[in-house]
């Protein structure tokens, strides 16, 4: 007999941890509007298949790919790079320096942007980022270093 409350609690804590990581990765790729929508749809999938997902080795990696396919119908390839951070970048923050930074991040290759955001903005470990994005830790290291270097040169701020 399934314990409904325990199942729901387990799912809630999953959403708060892994789910949040997947959402942030999707926002890094697709911007706020599409990323958050894709994340919500992905969590619906996670709930529907909770029995399998709860016992997967890398549910975050699986759900990130699900999220990418959820985002897919919303992304027009010509404007893809324009989706991050948002359809309206200046609405993301009142802080002009932050908006500038986000606009610069728009110009990074998407994997570099995601690794920089997840490691430097949110403090995830290289291993956690590698798992959710489905790449190696070495690739994450590369992306973070190159991404930061490009951002520094774009922004001419002190390292």
């Amino acid at each position, binding site marked *: 007999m399934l314990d409904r409350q325990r199942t*729901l609690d387990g799912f809630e804590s999953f959403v708060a941890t892994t789910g949040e990581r997947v959402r942030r990765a999707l926002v890094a790729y697709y911007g706020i509007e599409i990323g958050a929508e894709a994340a919500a749809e992905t969590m619906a999938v996670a709930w529907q298949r909770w029995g399998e997902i709860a016992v997967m080795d890398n549910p975050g990696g699986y759900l990130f790919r699900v999220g990418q396919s959820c985002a897919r119908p919303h992304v027009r*390839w010509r404007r893809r790079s324009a989706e991050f*951070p948002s359809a309206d970048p200046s609405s*993301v923050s009142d802080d002009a320096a932050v908006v500038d930074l986000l606009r610069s991040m728009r110009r990074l290759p998407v994997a570099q942007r995601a690794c920089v955001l997840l490691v430097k903005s949110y403090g995830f470990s290289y291993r956690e980022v590698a798992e959710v994005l489905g790449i190696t830790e070495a690739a994450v290291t590369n992306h973070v270093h190159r991404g930061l270097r490009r951002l520094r040169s774009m922004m001419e701020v002190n390292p």
Partner: protein
Amino acid sequence: MRTLDDLLIVAGAALDERCAELEPSTSDRNVGRSPRRHLVVGAAASVVVISSVAVLAVRNGGDVGDGASVAPGSPLTAPISETLDTLPPMSSDSATPASTGVPSTTIPSLAGPIAKGSSGEDVRRVEERLAELGFFVGDIDGEFDSLTEQAVWAWKKLVGDVSWQEFDDDPAKTTVTPEIWQTMLQPTDIAPRRPQGDESTHVEIYLPLQVMAVFIGDRPVLIAHVSSGEVVDDGVDPTMFCEVVTLDTDANGEPVDPPQEKAICAETRTPGGVFEITRRLDGKRIGPLGGMYRPQYFNYGIGLHGAENVPTRPVSHGMVRISTAAADAAWSLLDRGDRVYVWGQDGEEPEEYERSESLPSFLYPAPDGSAAP
């Protein structure tokens, strides 16, 4: 002055805050408005309740197999009205099979046949159903455009079991009649022919059907109509072509400087075999034989790429063409190292090709230096 590291942290927080402000979208969901739990509530509310309960319960009973059918009323298309608080109790002795997740409203039939150029709710329903099954439809917008058309083609060939030759000759190949729609609604299991048994991503290309599918964790996530290497009338053997081309890369894609003009011949063969994605180029590549969008190579110079023109018959010089929009989706789903299984035009299984048979046809000089075919 703040450092880059400081700004990155503030930027991350700003992104999180903007996300938290977004409400669960789509008017289909009656969702409670608690922002902290909105992901949980949104998730639970967007599931057709009976099917989710039944799936978990029946899974405990052990008789839901890997290829579980997708019922017409599954989450992405059914109207939703349940919230977290009204979930019925789950019990492990539920006799409700997974496929009765259909809500009390039945899915309406099509008013009439639709085809390219049609628009409206009927088109949207078809797009949604095809997308739900894993077919790439482009935007789900109620407009029957060329992407919708290619999705219908892919469905007719893969699920409708029509060969590309018969299909190519059919003047009504794009039309979706009310009868065809009813068939589309039936529980359909599109399973990989080579299940990997894990969460990996792999590609299966069925040349005799001119259809490809990307599977993640053995579930179809992108099924698309393709046009591969041209074949002669028997439908199996490649044709030969001779052209004057400008070669600025060699057979492995490495640059050749300066570019050379040559009269060359080759077979338009897409070989069968088991491969993996070796190189990917982001952007449009003008190869010696034409434009390719976001090519993902898996067999020397043969790969998957986006093209403007993906007709019903195989017409390429060997590459596997899909629409440019599908190429974008394939780009984000695939990566180097992902396995690619190709069923050749001669109907053999991918593993049955000798290594030499799996090699593509390399360009060779025209016999008399001319470009006459």
